């Protein structure tokens, strides 16, 4: 949502700058011909609010009364070019507004607002098979708990919108993104990415935002477990490590090495 607002803001700023350039250009061009700055300024501002009509030379009659016939053709040409530019800017701004309220972005907005209003909820950072399994299990609970997901993969974001799972798009190592998921008001946060460094940063940022939050984290290496606990994790799981042990023990049992 923050990125979306920023993108739309950039479009509006660009449109404003372009329209100012066109107004100044038109003013200079008309001044060169008419030598009457007040009349030119009035006319340009007036036509800015009447761009569609002026671009079609709808006010030809008005122009013919104001300027001598020998200058009318050139003035009319400037006014038409000027107003075509304004029409383009208007279209540009309308496109930006449509982009904001388009279906996909509206879903993003609703999802972001939903996540922002959550309290005592569970945040899952990173969406992968482990996260999916965990969400499925949480949804089997009789008492339903609100869950928000943070992920920066566009495909995952679209998929979770489709499944009506509140998602905040972005990196969970960014405190602003954590705040958008209301980490400051959440009860539990779970980091399930397969990247220990990212998870570690996530734990630090989550604890900084909310000292009371319960932090569960996944680690791929045993040596990183102590680091996770040191920065405030309440529990650390090692899925690959556990799998290695279970396969090793199975093989010991079935090869006769483990009596």
């Amino acid at each position, binding site marked *: 949502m923050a990125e979306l607002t920023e993108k739309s803001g950039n479009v509006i700023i660009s449109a404003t700058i372009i329209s100012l350039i066109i107004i100044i250009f038109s003013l200079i061009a008309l001044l060169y011909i008419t030598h009457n700055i007040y009349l030119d300024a009035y006319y340009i501002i007036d036509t800015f609010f009447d761009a569609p009509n002026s671009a079609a030379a709808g006010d030809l009659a008005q122009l013919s009364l104001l300027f001598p016939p020998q200058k009318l053709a050139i003035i009319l040409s400037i006014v038409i070019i000027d107003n075509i530019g304004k029409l383009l800017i208007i279209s540009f701004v309308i496109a930006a507004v449509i982009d904001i309220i388009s279906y996909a972005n509206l879903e993003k907005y609703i999802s972001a607002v939903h996540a922002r209003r959550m309290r005592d909820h569970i945040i899952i950072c990173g969406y992968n098979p*482990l996260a999916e399994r*965990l969400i499925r299990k949480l949804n089997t609970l009789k008492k339903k708990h609100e869950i928000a997901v943070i992920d920066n993969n566009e495909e995952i974001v679209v998929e979770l919108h489709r499944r009506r799972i509140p998602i905040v798009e972005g990196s969970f190592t960014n405190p602003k993104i954590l705040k958008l998921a209301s980490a400051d008001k959440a009860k539990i946060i779970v980091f399930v990415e397969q990247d220990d460094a990212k998870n570690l940063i996530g734990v630090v940022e989550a604890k900084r935002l909310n000292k009371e939050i319960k932090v*569960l984290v996944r680690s791929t290496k045993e040596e990183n477990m102590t680091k996770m606990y040191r920065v405030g994790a309440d*529990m650390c799981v090692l899925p*690959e490590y556990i799998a290695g042990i*279970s*396969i090793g023990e199975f093989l010991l049992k079935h090869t006769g090495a483990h009596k």
Partner: protein
Amino acid sequence: MEGYKEHVIVCGYGIVGERIVDILLEHKVNVVVIEIDHKKVELLRDRGIPVVEGDATTSKALKEAGIADAKAIAIAMDDDAKNLFATITAKSLNENIIIATRANDDLFETKLTDAGANFVATPNKSASDELFNEIIKGL
């Protein structure tokens, strides 16, 4: 890998594979690793662990690791499809071999069993159980 009999082949020396190798070596089980990454192959050679450099899904690498005389095989690569492929190849080369493998995706658990795996570890399953139990405590 000549001279090896009743040994265990470990395919993939990632986080899971490394743990398996450590456990087996602790119990003095003969191990041969198949690894595609040259850096890891060098590391294994430095540690004195027999290693075949190659793709564990191919008959060539499995034969080189002595699959015909092996007692068991641990297929522990990151990619479920590769694990399935290696399971099928291993079973076709040695009907009696004991196969233990891993699945990241639920869908592959039954596929690997159907292909001949005797044991399938699902890292996400055990981890999600642990996380779930901890979450319930905190709610």
